């Protein structure tokens, strides 16, 4: 099959450490954390031990028409805003966007939990008094693929729709599957990403599994602490990331700005336990991605590790990286700045990696004060480095044993 090159021609992210590229870069280079006290939701917050959250607490101005707003929960506001900005930055014409040659790969962990709560409040109310108030709009706001189809509606996109919902690998799959869709000629461009809104349900679940950080409730900026001896679990966060992927010749012909090239992707499953991290599974994913890109481990300059700061997850990931890469590439756990933005983390971490690639620096892992000896077999980034970044790997792993690795190359014209 004829394989085509796939480049990234635009990106936008809403993250706990900023919205614009300038704000995000500022946070990464100054070591600013986006982790804040967990907001009260009037339901679960006071029962949760972990009182920290990767928070989007700056004002965002949304300017959506009623015909769009009516089917959008908070998660779709994030998704559509980043999609709108990415499409605008790409310079793609409206004619192309609506031509059927552009598809959408976008997802979230489980749609809009805010809207789902509204629905269930009605279902569990006495006498089902409000049942008839629940209609199509509520479902369209809450459903798992709500982000993807609200994007198609807002921009009149008629190409294929992929809406993965695999927790922490949701948006890395979006990018990976979007990449393959273009690579193998099914679409000429794909709008890819993921989003997740503020939600205490996810915090409560991880809290019950003893996987959430609880030791730093009074000093939220000191957690999460990937690979650090004092790490005590993950911090849930919110956000969104959108990227425009485009077939290289198509982008070149229209003189599009090119942020980077996707040269490889792999996704596999551990084939067993749905929760425990699995070194063999992760190692295999990394190797599959390297094979896909036809590069050697020594060619990778930087790894954006999944690095949730759980006790065992970081150890297993470090062991897997150590086995494949040794101490060659620099490693950073970007979640140390903003927590685990769940379904959006793959897209956000890819975008942050692109920003670093373009600016020529590598951010250190925040809160990494004392490297856990069990995680010491890789080259951790402990201080800001000015360094050319040619090829980067973005690793993400999810509940259910799903693993993904994306390989991104700094764009240089052939």
């Amino acid at each position, binding site marked *: 099959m004829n394989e085509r090159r796939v480049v990234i021609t635009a990106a936008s992210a809403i993250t706990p450490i900023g919205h614009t590229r300038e704000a995000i870069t500022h946070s990464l280079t100054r070591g600013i954390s986006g982790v804040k006290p967990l907001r009260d939701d009037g339901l679960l917050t006071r029962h949760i031990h972990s009182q920290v959250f990767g928070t989007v607490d700056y004002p965002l101005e949304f300017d959506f028409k*009623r015909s769009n707003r009516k089917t959008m929960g908070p998660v779709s506001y994030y998704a559509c805003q980043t999609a709108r900005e990415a499409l605008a930055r790409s310079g793609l014409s409206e004619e192309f966007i609506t031509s059927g040659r552009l598809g959408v790969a976008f997802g979230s962990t489980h749609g809009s939990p805010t809207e789902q709560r509204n629905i269930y409040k009605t279902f569990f109310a006495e006498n089902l008094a409000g049942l008839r108030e629940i*209609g199509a709009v*509520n*479902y369209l706001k809450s459903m798992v693929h709500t982000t993807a189809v609200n994007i198609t509606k807002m921009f009149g996109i008629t190409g294929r729709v992929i809406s993965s919902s695999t927790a922490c690998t949701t948006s890395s799959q979006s990018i990976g599957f979007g990449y393959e869709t273009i690579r193998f000629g099914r679409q000429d461009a794909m709008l890819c990403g993921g989003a997740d809104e503020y939600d205490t349900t996810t915090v409560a679940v991880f809290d019950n599994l003893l996987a959430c950080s609880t030791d730093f409730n009074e000093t939220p900026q000191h957690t999460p602490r990937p690979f650090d001896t004092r790490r005590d679990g993950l911090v849930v966060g919110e956000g969104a990331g959108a990227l425009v992927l485009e077939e290289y010749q198509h982008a070149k012909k229209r003189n599009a700005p090119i942020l980077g090239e996707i040269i490889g992707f792999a996704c596999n499953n551990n084939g067993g336990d749905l929760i425990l991290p699995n070194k063999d599974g992760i190692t295999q994913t990394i190797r599959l991605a390297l094979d896909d890109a036809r590069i050697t481990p020594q060619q990778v300059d930087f790894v954006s590790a999944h690095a949730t700061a759980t006790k065992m997850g970081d150890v297993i990931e470090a062991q897997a990286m150590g086995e494949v890469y040794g101490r060659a590439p620099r490693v950073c756990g970007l979640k140390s700045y903003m927590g685990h933005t769940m379904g959006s983390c793959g897209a956000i971490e890819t975008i942050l990696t692109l920003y670093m690639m373009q600016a020529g620096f590598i951010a250190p892992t925040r809160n990494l004060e004392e490297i856990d000896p069990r995680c010491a077999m890789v080259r951790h980034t402990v201080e800001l480095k000015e360094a050319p970044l040619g090829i980067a790997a973005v690793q993400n792993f999810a509940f259910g044993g799903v693993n993904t690795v994306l390989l991104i190359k700094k764009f240089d014209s052939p």
Partner: protein
Amino acid sequence: MTRDAIETALRTIFLERFEIEEVALDDDLRDKHEFDSIDAIELLREIEILLGRELTRPEKKAAMDIRTLGHIIDYVNDLAASGGGPPEKTPKKSAGGP
């Protein structure tokens, strides 16, 4: 309920619920105001509240081809004139989607 009162009530619903301010009686609501099938379902619920009773399935189906405010006024006027029966005992089973 007079025809004028129905029109006033519907215009209020269009403004408050659908943010549609200026609507002529013969405007095609879909073409001119992006009023789609989802809005139509919402409007039927508003009409039920306005009339103080639940609409029957045949009554709802009769609304499916309506395209203008003028026709909606006719529709509500006919329903009001036919007199509202008591609310259905069993609400339509719907979890908010297909």
